[in-house]
């Protein structure tokens, strides 16, 4: 479970802020879970929010600026409504640079900048991923539970 730890005073690291990075496509139903999540959390001086369809190489530079990063993404095949995962850096690339994994980005960050923040992934279970806007009812329930977890921990 990720705990809020905003104690870093390093002037090189956004004054100890957390980066919350939402990944997904709102045009594909529950793939927009992460974006709905960041819309619903309160604004705060303790964290920055970044949103994108998918991870790109330059995100290695972005996350290198923070001490803690919480990625938020929709999950497809888990039993729990949400899970907190702790990915490990792993050099890997698929057939396209526009579908990089968190593990791959972490490895790039380590290689390029030395520093690697504490990385967590909030995976919220989605139900349907078709070409349409709006979350399914089940995804909304899972989102609510994930938001409760966030409220208790940040």
């Amino acid at each position, binding site marked *: 479970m990720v705990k809020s730890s905003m104690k870093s005073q390093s002037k090189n690291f956004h004054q100890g802020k957390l980066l919350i990075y939402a990944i997904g496509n709102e045009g594909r139903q529950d793939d927009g879970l992460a974006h709905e999540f960041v819309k619903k959390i309160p604004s705060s001086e303790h964290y920055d929010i970044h949103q994108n*369809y998918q991870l790109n190489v330059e995100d290695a530079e972005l996350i290198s600026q923070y001490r803690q990063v919480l990625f938020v993404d929709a999950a497809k095949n888990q039993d729990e409504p949400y899970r907190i995962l702790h990915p490990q850096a792993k050099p*890997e690339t698929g057939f396209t640079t*526009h579908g990089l994994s968190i593990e791959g980005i972490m490895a*790039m960050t380590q290689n390029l900048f030395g520093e690697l923040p504490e990385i967590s992934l909030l995976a919220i279970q989605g139900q349907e991923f078709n070409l349409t806007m709006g979350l399914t009812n089940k995804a909304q329930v899972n989102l609510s539970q994930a938001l409760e977890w966030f409220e208790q921990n940040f």
Partner: protein
Amino acid sequence: MTKKIVIEPVTRVEGHGKVTIHLNDQNQVEESRLHIVEFRGFEKFIQGRPYWEAPVVVQRLCGICPVSHHLAAAKAIDNIVGVDADGLTPVGEKMRRLMHYGQVFQSHALHFFYLAAPDLLFGVDADPAKRNVIGVIQEHKDLAIKGISLRKFGQEIIKATAGKKVHGISAVPGGIHKNLSKKEAKTFLEGTQGNIPGGNNGIPSVDQCIDWTEEVIDFLKDYHSKNKSFIDGFSDFDSNHLSLVGPDGAMDLYHGRLRAVDSQGNIILKDREYHDYLEFLSEDVKEWTYLKFPYLTKMGSEQGWSRVGPLARLNVCEGIPTPKAQARLDEYRSFTGQRVNNQSLYYHWARLIEMLHCAELMKELLQDPDLQKTDLITKGKRRNEGIGVIEAPRGTLFHHYEVSDKDDITRCNLIVSTTHNNEAMNRAVNIVAQRVLTGQQEVKESMLNEIEVAIRAYDPCLSCATHAVGQMPLQVSLMDSNGKIIHEITK
């Protein structure tokens, strides 16, 4: 008994493509094709929508080069509200130009550093586990960091001008939604502190962008010198070349007239107004791909197709109206000894010269007080038809809309840049396949990568011609004429 080799998906290009190669019993290449496997249909989807939505909606064609579609659509919709390209206010046109140059700059940076560099640095036959952007990061850290910085600069320019890095919103009918503040301009002129050389949140200065781009051009020039016979002989074939040109035939990526030259540099289409494109441009269709084949009507589909994009633009233009890029153009033409270059792998060098040109243009605009003006939008007499053409990173892009009196779009025709290069990419694939596969008893991964290198040089945006749905594993299959798999490689 024929054999078929399939490469699907093609790697290190934007979007999803497939290559099929047919070998006869003597292992000679009989035929090879680049297939665009996804149905697009955007021209139909957009019908019925209000015309003012087009510059925003049409960007969903692509998450890679959305700005090009945003601006081409905006230029077309300007016509609908009664405004021609030279009728925008200075701040309106210059903000759009800045946005466009930022887009071309970052797109070219992405292509060179992430997609093309692995082949150039490690060799086309290097271990595929290393021959990718991870390998570049691990063994050429300084180059990788510069690549990330350069792309970031372009993306931040897009954000400052379009409102968002992807699927921006600021080009509106008749102008622009916002100007550029002095503070924003200063950020890009001076750069900011950061983790990477020159930055706090990591934006290099525009002068740094110019310097680093020149360094990369020097690197590539050196690479060309050391590998000239390989590069020159890789995929050389005659073609026409098409692009917009500005006054006096100078390079102009944002607006101009259409010019085409043949493989020897003779002008075959002279500075035509692009609103008249239907008078001289046609599109052919084939049963094995959803991508169309544009061609100059008077020459027919077999002879009238043209290459577009960086190589074509350097071939077509008389010169480049920024001094450093012009000097590099002179150097490039002197190196090749030719006024017109028909060799596919020179796209990479041409692309970097355009990057430099864009960096110089961005520097000029960032110092221009017109960008702080507030007369953002203009209007004229309503029309029912609009056409916008722009030189996107990958080539000449056409957006054409017809609108009813009730403001809904009734017809749309898009000729996306990569479509022009369809024939050229197929020819490049065929030439390379003939060279590397004919007579070979064994199909190696490096041979297939050479075929991909041929496609990759064109920096195709297959995303603009596709709607990708789900994951596509890379599988290379060798099949007999009955479809039985003889040999298979899976990534």
